[in-house]
């Protein structure tokens, strides 16, 4: 096993005496990794969890991992948390943070908990967020609190269950996620508590994600940031709060901790990358071992069981408090679609949209009503400028109409004799002809023999393939055009809107698949920071190419939802509110939702592809958007950092090579 340090459990001195200064000296080395039963003095370990970590700074740019234990001596229960040997991660992962690095070595000892009698614990707050790792915060009777313990291997539920078994804990009436220890004041609560330990629910904090910077607190203290001063007293007090009257100190801490979640995830990502390149220190060796274990079937299933227990998102709001919290983590409640009246209120007297950001945000949360969609999409797609006037747009429409006709004439004027000698044209026309007759033919607008709209679809695509001859036609484009023509009901306008869309999505159809590869790569990075168990599973199942999400991404979920839902989804995506890449967060959201099944059934690539394909028509759109919003917000800048510049649908980075690299014959 790995090499860890264990301290002498026989020393049951008061936790206060084990002030963090002194702890370092009392740590004894043990060569053995045996972890279960009595070490000394008749203490019995009743709970032991590896890889429980604290993040000493708000930047979470390093963590200190250790082993959390509950052990019994006589009839008393104690908690210990002993950090592993220091790692080289600390200095490495701090790069880019700009500030001085935190002395890890020192921190390890600062935070060591040698033996904390549960009799001195006031409460334990658990956090089992849908996103990221579970953690708990231990608040002492004195009002002081320890830094959050992150359970990187899961196990919060087990931890609480073990506690419940040995000490008296009740769920706080004020907060379903706070468990009061040794609270004998309320006999009714005592009775109730004996009935059940509540199930684990996905929760977050009470901070609205939309106003993430509400408090400047100790965690934002510059001194704290720099990590320059760490003595036992200050580090303890920094994690303390007011004794709970109006609010719970643990909650305050956890709010800030989750605010910093993105930093935690960044750090975790960096740690993960270290894990696979470093092997020369104790922790990494240990974690490597963990990884190896993970890949074995047995280990995987036991781990996945644990994941399922704790982070499967089936929120059952058993009380109003929990419900409120759920709503916050879920992203905002969806709104009614933007109405005509609301829409007109965004324009000034000359027809400019004065606050496009507010408009886009509004549309993000509710979409638009059918009757204004035609107008709205032209802005969202970029065909119309937000600050253009009515007169300018009117003029543009007429100019663009004739411009379209000019391009269309280019192929319209190709005679049969000419076509005979123009293989590329014939082939391209053949591809488009084959596809338009099987695009959305069950939609009334396109159904029936000799439907003129099918012809228009064909004409626009063929004209586009002349407008953008390098890119040409590719399967999937007809799917993207179909709803646009349906909405615009005008050939020229549809063409230009399609052109605008393809400015962003064109690279999806690159011959070298570069646009798709960059998105699939970004997706794998996002899953890595937002759902590491699933990432690890995909890794060991050799599914990291995420090719099973190809269809989702290529045509923006077109095949996964009903037609009217697609229009709604696309206008939401096109607002680019929060991110240009919300569709990738949607992928994460859906995968995450099905993680239990994917991992539980040990799906291989084939099975996964089948499973994903068959989700079509069974995905809850509103849920997925809200979840994607929450994931996007939580991932924050680190999420954005997963997505390389120029990744579609970001506008491509132009090079001398042209927008669409040609590496084989043009079709």
């Amino acid at each position, binding site marked *: 096993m790995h090499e860890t340090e264990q301290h002498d459990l026989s020393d049951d001195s008061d936790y206060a005496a084990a002030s963090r200064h002194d702890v370092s000296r009392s740590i004894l080395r043990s060569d053995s990794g045996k972890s279960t039963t009595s070490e000394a003095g008749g203490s019995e370990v009743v709970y032991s969890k590896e890889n429980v970590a604290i993040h000493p700074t708000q930047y979470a740019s390093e963590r200190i991992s250790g082993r959390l234990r509950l052990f019994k001596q006589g009839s008393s229960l104690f908690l210990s948390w002993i950090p592993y040997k220091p790692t080289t991660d600390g200095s490495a992962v701090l790069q880019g943070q700009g500030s001085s690095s935190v002395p890890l070595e020192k921190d390890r000892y600062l935070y060591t908990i040698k033996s904390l009698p549960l009799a001195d614990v006031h409460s334990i707050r658990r956090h089992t967020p849908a996103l990221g790792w579970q953690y708990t915060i231990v608040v002492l009777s004195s009002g002081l609190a320890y830094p959050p313990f992150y359970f990187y291997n899961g196990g919060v539920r087990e931890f609480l269950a073990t506690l419940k078994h040995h000490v008296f804990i009740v769920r706080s009436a004020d907060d379903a996620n706070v468990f009061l220890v040794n609270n004998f004041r309320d006999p009714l609560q005592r009775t109730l508590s004996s009935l059940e330990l509540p199930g684990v629910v996905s929760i977050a904090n009470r901070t609205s994600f939309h106003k993430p910077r509400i408090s400047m607190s100790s965690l934002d203290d510059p001194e704290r940031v720099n990590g320059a001063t760490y003595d036992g007293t200050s580090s303890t007090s920094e994690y303390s709060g007011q004794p709970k009257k109006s609010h719970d100190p643990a909650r305050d801490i956890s709010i800030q901790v989750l605010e910093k979640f993105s930093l935690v995830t960044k750090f975790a990502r960096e740690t993960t990358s270290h894990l696979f390149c470093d092997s020369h220190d104790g922790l990494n060796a240990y974690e490597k071992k963990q990884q190896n274990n993970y890949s074995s079937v047995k280990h995987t299933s036991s781990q996945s069981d644990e994941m399922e227990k704790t982070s499967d998102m089936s929120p059952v709001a058993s009380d109003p408090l929990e419900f409120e919290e759920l709503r916050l983590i879920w992203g905002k409640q969806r709104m009614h679609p933007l109405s005509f009246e609301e829409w007109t209120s965004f324009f000034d007297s000359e027809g400019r949209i004065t606050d496009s950001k507010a408009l886009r945000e509004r549309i993000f949360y509710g979409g638009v009503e059918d009757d204004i969609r035609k107008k709205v999409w032209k802005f969202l797609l970029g065909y119309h400028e937000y600050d253009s006037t009515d007169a300018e747009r009117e003029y543009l429409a007429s100019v663009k109409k004739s411009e379209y006709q000019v391009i269309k004439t280019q192929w319209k004027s190709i005679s049969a004799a000419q076509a005979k000698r123009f293989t590329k044209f014939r*082939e391209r026309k*053949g*591809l488009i002809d*084959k*596809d338009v*007759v*099987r*695009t959305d*033919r069950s939609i009334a607008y396109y159904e029936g023999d000799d439907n003129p709209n099918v012809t228009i679809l064909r004409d626009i695509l063929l004209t586009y393939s002349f407008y953008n001859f390098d890119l040409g036609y*590719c*399967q*999937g484009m*007809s*799917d993207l055009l179909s709803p646009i023509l349906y909405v615009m009901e005008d050939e020229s306008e549809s063409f230009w809107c399609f052109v605008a869309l393809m400015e962003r999505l064109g690279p999806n*159809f690159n*011959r*070298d*698949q570069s646009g798709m590869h960059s998105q699939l790569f970004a997706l794998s990075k996002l899953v890595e920071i937002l759902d590491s168990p699933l990432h690890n599973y995909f890794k060991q199942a050799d599914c990291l190419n995420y*090719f099973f999400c*190809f*269809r989702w991404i*290529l*045509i923006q979920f077109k*095949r996964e939802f009903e037609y009217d839902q697609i229009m709604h989804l696309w206008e939401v995506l096109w607002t680019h509110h929060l991110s240009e890449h919300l569709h990738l967060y949607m992928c994460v959201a859906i995968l995450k939702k099905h993680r239990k099944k994917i991992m539980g059934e040990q799906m291989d690539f*084939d099975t996964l*592809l*089948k499973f994903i*394909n068959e989700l079509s028509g069974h995905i809850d759109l509103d849920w997925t958007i809200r979840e994607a919003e929450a994931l996007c917000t939580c991932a924050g800048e680190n999420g954005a950092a997963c997505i390389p510049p120029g990744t579609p649908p970001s506008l491509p980075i132009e090079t001398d090579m042209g927008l669409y690299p040609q590496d084989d014959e043009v*079709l």
Partner: protein
Amino acid sequence: MATTGNNSVNAKLVLLGDMGAGKSSLVIRFVRGQFLEFQESTIGAAFFAQTLAVGDTTVKFEIWDTAGQERYHSLAPMYYRGAAAAIVVFDITSSESFEKAKKWVQELQKQGNPNMVTALAGNKCDLEDKRKVEVEEARTYAEENGLFFLETSAKTAINVNDIFYEIARRLPQAQPAQQPAGVVLTNTPAQRSQSSSCCS
């Protein structure tokens, strides 16, 4: 690869061919017994499973249906790699699709599993009046290249099940060296396929 259990074989099968040749229609006819006049194009790939009983042996086909457009060609090896069988589909009303089919056959011969059972399907044989590829031409090509050939129609269901049955019959014999050690495929009528007809 085909893998075997007691009297049962799992076989990965891939459908290749020009876009619009009817790959998805063939597999949907086989798996669901359905036909859509305007079967939508396949984006990426689709996966189906269907089980057939051949004599005492059950063959479970794991079928990969691929996107036909040339531009997605580079993704195809992901699907045919390790496949025990392939159906290369062309549209008898399109000479181009027959040429594409030949290219696919060449590629499989070069890159695919050497023991792969490969079938050539001339689909849309209900459209006799629009025929561009003669039966003899395709049959000759198939014989020269060690394929078996059937003309099919996903629309009328002609020969659709037959082509899958024929592949199933040929699998165990085609894969003698592929059986994992220690797994014995018993009770398989080894001679059966020798006598089976392979042409329409």
